[in-house]
């Protein structure tokens, strides 16, 4: 039995799984086991891989936030504007900090706000043009087309600002995928740097990391780039203090951060929510097998970028194998039906 679900179905799927059991396990493709449990109002993710355990704990409302806001392409533009202004102010206030080149990888542009983010970034870049010379958008073609159209419709590009589109660097949110993608990513960045010979590049500010999972990937990538090219890379994290503390614990290293004081709390919640829900969803999307007390099914992910792109209906399927699978199918159907009524009434 195959259930095809839309992005808006993921919330009822997670809700259903957690209603069946407070804890369920995902056997991932890399033979690690991810155990998802509900503790109070937080999701706790424990991952066992090769005899070692890692964990993180996430607020449960992330899925709700995602469901409510991810479908729009132009969310919270004003909030983003404020957030980025504060962000840049704080960044420039740091001694020795600079942004000679900014790379937006598709990962950074996924966060439910790619168009708003890109548009605002360009207006910020315009005002800081003495210090930001080039912006690279490394995004998939189908996002690029929309982005270019929107940029020209709503926010003509300043002449003096270079805007370039390069092939996606291929960063992925999923931790184990980065191992596969890392080589390609470094090669992509190498091409990028070669193409920018006019700039005396000694330091790259790479993307905007959101959430522990993404940040840890950027961190690892930074180290790899530094080792490979001798170029200093500054990963930047926009998230809450709580996540940073967790990330520090996770990585065992101090992290430069933009504190919640510098980011309005309501914006911080938005960023954090989207980042963390993507972490959860990516785990789900990349999972091969899901088991719970009375449920077993296989999730077949489409390309992740397509699955999470707000403009498309994701090609995500669930192949239900045994157990009370029929209830899940009907639960999704009921959810769709009730939401249809809500939107039509």
């Amino acid at each position, binding site marked *: 039995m195959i259930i095809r679900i839309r992005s808006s179905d993921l919330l009822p799927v997670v809700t259903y799984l957690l209603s069946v059991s407070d804890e369920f396990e995902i056997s991932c493709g890399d033979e690690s086991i991810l155990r998802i449990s509900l503790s109070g109002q937080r999701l706790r993710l424990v991952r066992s891989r090769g005899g070692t355990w890692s964990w993180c704990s996430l607020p449960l409302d992330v899925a709700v936030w995602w469901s409510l806001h991810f479908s729009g392409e132009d969310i919270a533009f004003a909030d983003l504007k404020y957030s980025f202004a504060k962000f840049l102010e704080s960044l420039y206030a740091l001694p020795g900090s600079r942004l000679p080149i900014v790379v937006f990888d598709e990962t950074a542009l996924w966060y439910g706000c790619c168009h708003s983010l890109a548009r605002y970034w360009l207006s910020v870049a315009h005002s800081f043009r003495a210090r930001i010379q080039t912006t690279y958008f490394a995004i998939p073609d189908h996002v690029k087309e929309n982005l270019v159209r929107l940029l020209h419709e709503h926010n003509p590009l300043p002449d003096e600002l270079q805007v370039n589109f390069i092939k996606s660097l291929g960063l992925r949110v999923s931790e184990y995928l980065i191992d596969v993608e890392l080589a390609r990513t470094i090669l992509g960045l190498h091409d990028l740097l070669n193409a920018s010979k006019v700039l005396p590049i000694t330091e790259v500010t790479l993307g905007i990391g959101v959430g522990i999972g993404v940040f840890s990937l950027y961190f690892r990538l930074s180290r790899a780039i530094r080792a490979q090219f001798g170029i200093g890379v500054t990963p930047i994290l926009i998230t809450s203090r709580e996540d940073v503390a967790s990330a520090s614990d996770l990585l065992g290293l101090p992290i430069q951060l933009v504190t919640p004081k510098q980011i309005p709390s309501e914006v911080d919640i938005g960023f954090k929510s989207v980042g963390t829900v993507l972490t959860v969803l990516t785990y789900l999307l990349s999972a091969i097998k899901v088991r719970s007390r009375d449920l077993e099914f296989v999730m077949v992910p489409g390309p992740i970028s397509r699955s999470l792109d707000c403009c498309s209906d994701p090609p995500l399927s669930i192949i239900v194998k045994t157990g009370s699978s029929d209830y899940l199918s009907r639960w999704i159907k009921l*959810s769709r039906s009730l939401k249809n009524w809500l939107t*039509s009434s």
Partner: protein
Amino acid sequence: MSSDSNAVLITCVGATPIVVVNVYAHYLMHDELRRLRIKYVLLGASSNTIRFIDSIGRCLREVATYFGREVPEVDYVEVDPFDIYDIWSKLRKRVVERYGDLVRVVDVTAGTKPMSIALYKLATDIDAKYVTYLSLRSREFENLPFTDIPKYYSNIVILERKV
């Protein structure tokens, strides 16, 4: 309580009509309340919310079918949403006329504050077996169907229980 207690669920319709559906669903999922056989849902609705009645009926049908339960019949009374006496008296009259021989249960979640107060007063007058309230921990969920609300965030509270 026997498992075949025929009951009427009395509540009101407010600006977020999905609440009525969510309340009904929680009755069907609750360990104790699920033993009721809700044959009728009586709604107090304002002139603005009467338009939701048909849709609510369809949603209740879908929910009942999902849980394998008898589909309840929806009845309504038009009330002034800000007049406690009007709400109380009209619902009371309908209950006495049509549902006197059924178990009465009242939910005070949906609707205006006067509606909730009138429902509570009504519950006392008609000797309701249960008075309930669907509690949500976050306003983010107010307009979502129960299928999308993690269980931690919502639970039905039994405010009064007639032994």
